[in-house]
């Protein structure tokens, strides 16, 4: 994609929309978001989504998903708590070249954000934003069978079980989100 914005060194930033909800701001990744990401991937909470990772491997994952904005034109937004300004997770579209179709994904980094509906708010905003801005209207979500919290959220969002598939990272359940109007 052609980038419209540039950082201080003249390298392009993705031409990515910023999304707002009642409590959250969703914006494209920047370097200052990496510590929150690496902290999550150093913790046992990351075990069901590819972790734990050391800082170097976390940087590879973070920079790779940032680069997807340029390769595909869409990607993960960083989820910022509007009141505190703290990065509390990420939500958006994961679609590397080897993935069969766009996937809606979300991560909430800390326990302290559980039980407040934050993950639902972030994932729904990302799903709506992907439909409106990128025409991705019925994404899948691939979830490990043991990740009961994410399965419950996918179901609350109206996603339906749509079989299983063998990803490069191992077997996953596939959920299909309902058609969202663009």
């Amino acid at each position, binding site marked *: 994609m052609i980038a419209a914005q540039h950082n201080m060194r*003249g390298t392009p930033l993705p031409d990515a929309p910023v999304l707002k909800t009642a409590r959250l701001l969703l914006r494209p990744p920047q370097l200052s978001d*990496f510590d929150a990401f690496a902290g999550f991937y150093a913790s046992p909470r990351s075990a069901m989504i590819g972790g734990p990772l050391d800082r170097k491997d976390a940087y590879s994952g973070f920079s790779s998903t940032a680069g*997807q904005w340029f*390769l595909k034109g869409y990607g993960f937004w960083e989820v910022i708590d509007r009141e505190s300004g703290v990065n509390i997770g990420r939500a958006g579209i994961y679609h590397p070249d*080897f993935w069969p179709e766009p996937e809606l994904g979300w991560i909430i980094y800390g326990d302290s954000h559980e039980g407040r509906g934050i993950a639902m708010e972030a994932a729904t905003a990302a799903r709506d934003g992907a439909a409106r801005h990128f025409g991705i209207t019925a994404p899948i979500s691939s979830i490990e069978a043991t990740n009961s919290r994410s399965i419950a959220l996918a179901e609350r969002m109206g996603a339906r079980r749509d079989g299983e598939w063998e990803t*490069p990272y191992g077997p996953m359940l596939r959920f299909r989100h309902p058609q969202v109007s663009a």
Partner: protein
Amino acid sequence: MTADLTTARLTLRMPDARDHASYSAFFADAEASRFYGGPLLPYQAWERLAADIGHFMLKGFGRFVIEKDGQVIGGCGILDVDGWPGHELTWWLLPAARGQGIAQEASRAVLAWAGTELGWPRVETHFRDENTAARRLTESLGGTKQRRETFPDGIDRDIYAMPTTEKVSA
């Protein structure tokens, strides 16, 4: 955006979606990619390409691809991977492009760019002891050994620094 760098024979530009085949070919070659974490499957090569693009986006510098006669033959640039000790001048070349002084020519362009565009007086690099090609190239670029460190993977590596502003004779 980051401007292309040009030399007598080469153009260095930011990697993009066109470069998946070149990355896959290089990283599928176990011998050629042995100092670069290879061999990699095509999906892992795509992740590497995406990470190289993301590095430019996050840090304002990164690893360019090298074009010669309109074909991508390798890459050269500066990576600064968090969790790894310091930044490094790095290069990779498809086997057919080796032995022609291309890594040196590309490295000189990157060093000059680091001096003028990034304002860095010197650029560091590091390599395994058995990577004699990297050591020779680094020394040909005016590099001198600064220190030796044990890296997070448990391997000891020499760390060299190269000047960006001085003219270095081959």
